[in-house]
C-alpha cells in the first residue's frame, strides 16, 4: 500500500512537470484546444504498466492540481471531461487488444478534444462551438500519434517489475 501511494505520487509529480512544460510552450495557432498532450504519455505508461484505477487517480489528481497551480481553476471541469473521456476510450481500446499504443494514443487525444468541446457546448449552451471539432480532430490525431510513439517506446523500456507492488 505504502509503495503504491509513493508510486502514484511519483507519477502525479511527473505528470505535473510535463503539464508545466506545456504551459511554458504554448502553440500559437489562434485556435483554442490544440495541445501536445505530454501528460497523456505519462497516463499511458500507467495504463500499460499498472492498473486503470491508478491511471484514473493520477489523471484526476494531475488535472485538478495543474488547474490550481498553473492553469485556471474555472476550467478544471473542462479538462476533467476531456481527461476522463480520453482515459475511458484508451482503456476500452486497449482491452480489445486490436491496437498498438500509437492508435490508442491518437484515439485518446481525439477523445480529450471531444470531451472538452462537449462540456463547452453544454455549459455555454451554444452548439456552434462544435465547428472547431474537425480542426481539433486533426491536431488531436497528430499529437496523439507522436505521444503514442513516445509512450510505446517507454512502455517496452521500463521494466515491469519496477511497478509491481
Amino acid at each position, binding site marked *: 500500500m505504502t509503495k503504491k501511494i509513493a508510486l502514484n505520487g511519483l507519477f502525479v509529480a511527473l505528470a505535473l512537470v510535463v503539464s508545466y512544460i506545456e504551459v511554458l510552450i*504554448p502553440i*500559437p*495557432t*489562434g*485556435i*483554442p484546444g490544440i495541445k501536445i498532450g505530454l501528460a497523456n504519455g505519462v497516463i499511458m505508461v500507467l495504463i500499460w504498466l499498472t492498473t486503470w484505477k491508478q491511471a484514473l487517480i493520477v489523471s484526476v489528481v494531475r488535472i485538478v492540481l495543474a488547474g490550481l497551480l498553473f*492553469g*485556471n*481553476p*474555472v*476550467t478544471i471541469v*473542462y479538462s476533467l471531461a476531456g481527461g476522463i473521456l480520453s482515459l475511458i476510450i484508451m482503456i476500452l481500446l486497449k482491452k480489445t487488444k*486490436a*491496437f*498498438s499504443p*500509437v*492508435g490508442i494514443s*491518437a*484515439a485518446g487525444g*481525439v477523445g480529450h478534444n471531444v470531451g472538452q468541446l462537449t462540456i*463547452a457546448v453544454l*455549459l*455555454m*449552451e*451554444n*452548439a*456552434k*462551438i*462544435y*465547428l*472547431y*471539432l*474537425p*480542426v481539433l*480532430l*486533426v491536431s488531436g*490525431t497528430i499529437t496523439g*500519434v507522436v505521444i503514442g510513439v513516445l509512450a510505446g517506446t517507454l512502455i517496452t523500456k521500463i521494466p515491469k517489475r519496477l511497478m509491481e507492488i
Partner: protein
Amino acid sequence: MKKKDLFLVGGILIIALTSMLVIHLTQRDGKQVKVTVDGKIVHEASLSKNETYTIPVESGENKMRIKNGYVKMIDADCPDQICKNHKKISKDGETIVCLPHKVVIEIMSDTKDNELDGMTN
C-alpha cells in the same frame, strides 16, 4: 504499429478532413455579431460597422473590436487568455469563447439565424 491503427487514425482523419471541407464550402460570410454572457444576449452589432465594445461580465472585463468585417477579442482579464489569443473571426457560425467568463462571441449570416441553421448549414 498495427494495421488496425492505420484504419483508426486514417478513419478519424478522413472524417475530420471531409467535415472541414464541407464547412469550408458551405460557410457564408457573416453579417451580424452576437455576444452572449452565460447564455443571455448582451449585445448585437453589424459586422460592417467598426466598433469597440466592452462586454459586461461579473468577474472582470472582456473587450472586443469589430474592424473591417472581422471580430477580435482585444482585451480580457481572464486567467487563461485563450479568448485574447484567438484568431480574428468573420465567417458565419464562427465563435470566440471565453470559458472563465462564460462569454461567447458568435458570427451570424443574418439576424434571423437560429441555432438549427448553425448546426446544419
